[in-house]
């Protein structure tokens, strides 16, 4: 992957390797967040940046078969919610565009970062996505 490509938003993930979602933790409320909020919405206190788990389980997904030209996504593409291991947090994200047919509820997935589509500036950019782990499922 080209090092010239930028994330679709700053402060959302580290490219790695290994790639990481940049979450946050409120020490007062002991709650994790993704993405990092301005403050903890529960106590308005400062939150601390943390890396979130890069593995999880598919909670639900969708496969969009019509064109999404807004950010030039591949056609079709899958996205949905993943329950991250040990983080007690359910995050939304893309799934591996090469493995759309393998996605199903309960599937184990791993975080990746790669070039998918374009960003707000109209240029190719990096997005995070979850790729199915080998074995089990389809």
């Amino acid at each position, binding site marked *: 992957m080209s090092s010239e490509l930028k994330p679709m938003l700053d402060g959302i993930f580290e490219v790695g390797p290994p790639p990481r979602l940049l979450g946050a933790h409120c020490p007062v409320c002991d709650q994790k967040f993704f993405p990092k909020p301005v403050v903890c919405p529960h106590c308005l206190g400062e939150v601390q940046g943390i890396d979130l788990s890069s593995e999880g389980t598919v909670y639900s997904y969708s496969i969009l078969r019509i064109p*999404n030209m807004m950010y030039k996504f591949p056609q079709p593409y899958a996205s949905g919610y993943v329950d991250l291991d040990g983080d007690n947090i359910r995050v939304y994200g893309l799934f591996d565009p090469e493995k759309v047919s393998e996605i199903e509820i309960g599937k184990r997935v791993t975080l990746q970062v790669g070039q998918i589509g374009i960003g707000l500036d109209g240029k190719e950019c990096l997005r995070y996505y979850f790729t199915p782990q080998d074995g089990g499922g389809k």
Partner: protein
Amino acid sequence: MRSVDIIGVGMTPFGKHEKTPLVEMGTRAAIEAIKDAGIKSSQINIGYFANMQAGNLTKEFTVGQAVMWGAGVNKVPVFNIENACTSGASATTLAWMSIASGQYDIAIVVGAEKLNVPFVPLLNPSMRDINVLEGNVVINGFAQRAVRHMHSFGTTKEQLAMVDVKNRRHASMNPLAMFYKKPVTLEEVLNTTMMADPLTKLSCCPNADGAAALVLCASELSSQYTTKPVHIKASVLVSGVFDEWPDMETFEEDQRASRIAYEKAGLGPEDVSVAECHDAFTICEVMHTENLGFCPIGEGGRFVESGATSLGGKIPMNVSGGLLGKGHPLGATACAQIVEGVRQLRGECGDRQVEGAKVFLAECMGAELRGDAKTCTVNILQK
């Protein structure tokens, strides 16, 4: 709090009205509602205008004042309200509050939207939202719910498709619906283009242009103007929870908004004669039917299959045709639901009249944030 009635309603046909400007559509609905109420424009004390996309699609702003003046309403406070698909119901809640509080006697609510313009972009809740940047356009959120609902409750794609068949049959009896006299079959719904599994093209409501309007009046004054007032028993708006653990199997916002509304109305789901809900996609109506209390959670698919939500059934849903059958002019949609409710309770709905309708419920839901609905409304009307 004073009791508040709806004393006048108006609505343009929903559909493609390329030649009619947004302001004119709103004005025409307002004029009809004012005449239906039997009042003069100058008796209106306050106005609310609901719209979502004018700033984006036709670069029009602060539209309500122009709409209102076209119907003869000037000088009085006018507010422009945007709350996605619930804009019209949100405006209604504010109009209700204005009168219930005793500050104003007569209020007008107009919802209008013009979506059929050249080069309509894909409509989405926010270009800057992280989930939208990561690909979560509107239909994806509902496809994710459908996938989860089928997984957990055994709902079938045929049951989902039956929602559209039913609402298109209802719309075929509504001269104001985009699909008036245009029913569809189960096979047609299942065999159109797959948009996002299991949602086919006919599982999604079409964009439409249109407007709808309501005149609200303090109940103590409404007998001066009409012999058929409809009482607002509850007008509720809630926002989502937005925390770190979104649930795709239920609409928590529906449950919370309807619980508050039922309590305010002193009524329960078993008292509702006829209801409209936000059937933007077929899965939505299945879930709304459950989460408003009309059937148990998870039973929505089998409930529509049983015919319970059809005209003549236990709790007819979207007898107007709903968004699937009427079309979905965003800012007008939630006002049009209430227009249908008023006409059902007055017994004015002809072929699609629900016999003996006494209590009406309208639910609407709009925009997504972190897997929850940003906004959800429930209005309960009584004859």
